[in-house]
């Protein structure tokens, strides 16, 4: 036989079961749905946060590296220009030195040559003097064929030498 409750009637057990069902649902929803989803949200937030942090760090690093490289590059350029300048300067100095050395050498050679010439000339003059003297004596003796006193002879010779030495 089928039995029915009244359409509107208080049935305490139905209420109690409803409460129990609701309690079970609260626990089920909390454990199986809300908690996992909320945890996932929190985790996602954390992950996103850490990603942002990483990105920021990477950007900072990149900027630092960039400025470092720029600095290094400009330093290198400076160094290069400094080296170039030094080299040019040195080369100029060296060139000048070489030229001055060459000039010195040349002038030394010239001086030496002049000295040599002078000496040679003196020697030649001396030799010529001697020759001329003897020749003059001979010529004079032969041409005049006259006895000159020894005194005259000597005086004449002196005069001749002096005059020919001054003339050169």
């Amino acid at each position, binding site marked *: 036989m*089928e*039995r*029915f*409750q*009244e*359409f*509107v*009637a*208080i*049935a*305490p*057990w*139905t*209420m109690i*079961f*409803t*409460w129990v*069902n*609701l309690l*079970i*649902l*609260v*626990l*089920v*929803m*909390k454990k*199986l*749905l*809300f*908690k*996992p*989803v*909320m*945890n*996932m*949200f929190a*985790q*996602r937030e954390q*992950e996103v946060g850490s990603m942002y942090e990483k990105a920021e760090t990477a950007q900072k690093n990149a900027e630092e590296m960039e400025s470092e490289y720029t600095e290094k590059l400009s330093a290198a350029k400076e160094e290069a220009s400094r080296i170039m300048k030094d080299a040019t300067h040195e080369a100029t100095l060296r060139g000048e030195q070489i030229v001055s050395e060459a000039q010195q050498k040349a002038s030394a050679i010239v001086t030496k040559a002049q000295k040599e010439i002078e000496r040679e000339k003196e020697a030649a003059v001396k030799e010529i003097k001697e020759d001329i003297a003897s020749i003059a004596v001979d010529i004079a003796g032969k041409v005049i064929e006259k006895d000159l006193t020894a005194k005259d002879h000597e005086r004449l010779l002196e005069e001749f030498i002096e005059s020919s030495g001054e003339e050169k």
Partner: protein
Amino acid sequence: MNVRGPKILFEIPVLGGIPITETILNGWIVVAVVTIFCFILGRNLSTRNPSKRQMLAEKAVTMLRDLVKTTMGEHNLFFLPYVGALFSYSILSSMMGIFGLRAPTGDINTTVAFALIAFFLIQFYGIKNNGLGGWLKGFIEPVPFMLPLNLVGELANPISMAFRHFGNIASGIVITILIYGALAGLSRIVLGWIPVIGSIPFLQVGIPAFLSLYFDLFSSFLQAYIISMLTMVYVGNANEAPSVSE
């Protein structure tokens, strides 16, 4: 044609007999269904590239959380699982009519149980936040003369909540029964003269489906939304945010 309460399926012979009615059995079905849904939705969640299933879970949780947050305030967010349970229990119970089962919410005891929880929560927070004296004093404010009106007002809330929900769903059940009866009668009149076919109530096919659309889907959602919303508003009012002057 009989308009009756839930069928008593059997009786557990303890404590003077515990009647297990359709309401109770169908309530268990709802619990089972919700549990399965929650289990499917809540597992294998990943923080990246959520699947469609996960997106649904996220959307549901976010929507419900935002609703609780805006209605009850941030400090009442711990009510989230209860509101979720209440809403799902209510809507799935009401929708059972689609499958020809008797809706647990079409039983006054179910909706009274819902309303009593809200009622006790309101009183609990009234005492907790105002002290027993303050809570009692609230009934004779602004003048002691108002005591009876205040009492009636306080009791009217759960009663109206319970009866609104019950009335809507139960009337759906009643109207569906009436419509079926009427359609059977109409069938007999229109098609009754045809020998064999006349004994089959053909007009019962199709037309109730449109009514079911309203009573089982729209009304179910609406009533579930209303009872959840009212519970949130009443309990939220009773447990307002702690003053900011900390």
